[in-house]
């Protein structure tokens, strides 16, 4: 039921590219460092495969979750490795692992998530409002499966768009996911001129 054509996935990839480009620029000016972006990866996967695709489910990650409400509902999920979380804190001049560190990551999540959603919203002319992020440090699998259960649970397939950002040569990689709710994907696609 939830399968997409290559053309539709390409259009979504381009849309994610514009969103993450905007987010990268915002992060770059916040940190005063150059930020490199990978070409976004867009895939429609069975839910269990979507969890596996993101890495070792037992590895610990710092995750920021921003729920999106509006013409399209969904979740933006930011995943930082522990090293990346520590590096970002250091770049911002706050001690990693401290309360200030957590709040700095929350702010980074807020800036990345809002600029991402804003760029996509204005591209497809949809009103989408991100809520402030929640940041947790937990198992990758527990984080991703809980987001999928909340957003895409009653479907067989989740559409996941992810991009990797790299901050200068700091070996600081984070991934960036947009997980729209079921009807949201169709809304996006019809706005992109490729209705299902």
């Amino acid at each position, binding site marked *: 039921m939830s399968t997409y054509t290559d053309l539709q996935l390409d259009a979504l990839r381009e849309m994610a590219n514009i969103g993450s480009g905007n987010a990268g620029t915002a992060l770059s000016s916040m940190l005063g460092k150059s930020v490199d972006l990978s070409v976004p990866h867009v895939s429609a996967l069975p839910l269990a495969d979507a969890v596996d695709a993101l890495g070792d*489910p037992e590895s*610990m990650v710092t995750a920021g979750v921003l729920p999106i409400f509006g013409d399209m509902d969904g979740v933006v999920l930011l995943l930082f490795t522990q090293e990346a979380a520590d590096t970002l804190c250091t770049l911002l001049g706050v001690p990693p692992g401290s309360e200030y560190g957590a709040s700095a990551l929350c702010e980074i999540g807020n800036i990345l998530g809002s600029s991402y959603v804003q760029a996509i919203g204005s591209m497809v002319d949809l009103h989408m409002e991100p809520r402030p992020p929640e940041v947790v440090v937990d*198992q*990758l*699998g*527990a984080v991703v*499966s*809980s987001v999928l259960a909340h957003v895409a649970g009653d479907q067989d397939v989740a559409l996941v768009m992810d991009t990797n950002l790299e901050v200068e040569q700091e070996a600081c990689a984070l991934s960036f996911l947009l997980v729209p709710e079921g009807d949201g994907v169709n809304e996006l696609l019809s706005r992109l001129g490729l209705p299902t």
Partner: protein
Amino acid sequence: MISTETMVRMGELAVSTGSGDVLTSIGLGSCIGLVLVDRAKGVVGLAHVMLPERPASVAPQPGKFADTAVPALIDAVVAKGARRVRLEAFMVGGAQMFTFGGGSMDVGARNAAAVKAGLAAARLPVRAAETGGDRGRTVRVYAEDCRVTVKAAGGPETPLLSAPSAGRMAA
């Protein structure tokens, strides 16, 4: 001894009678790891339940929804030789990792309630449970001695219930 670990991923269920087998669900957040064991027969089963109930529009995937997973797992362990009256149940997971900006529905708590209700309807006792909270967990079931362990994110693997000594098995 050769031990084979089977990953039971979101929405899946598995059973085993092999003495070296381990059934594992890694990264249970709001999901529930539902375990059924028949100690006398050495049959173990694990379902990785994702949501409380199956919407009518969705294709059946027995392990995914609590209302279908409980009967499906019972049938699966019985088919492997377990006696229904000897089954014991264990539950792990059902955390609330995020509030998602509204907290309108705590999927983890609803999952735990739905699995518990399903077990009560089937008249199966819950021998031990570790549910709720806000941490991810990993559950492992060892077919060798029907041992169930739980490991919270970043913590050590601890027994949810250790294998009882043979003498206490009689009843």
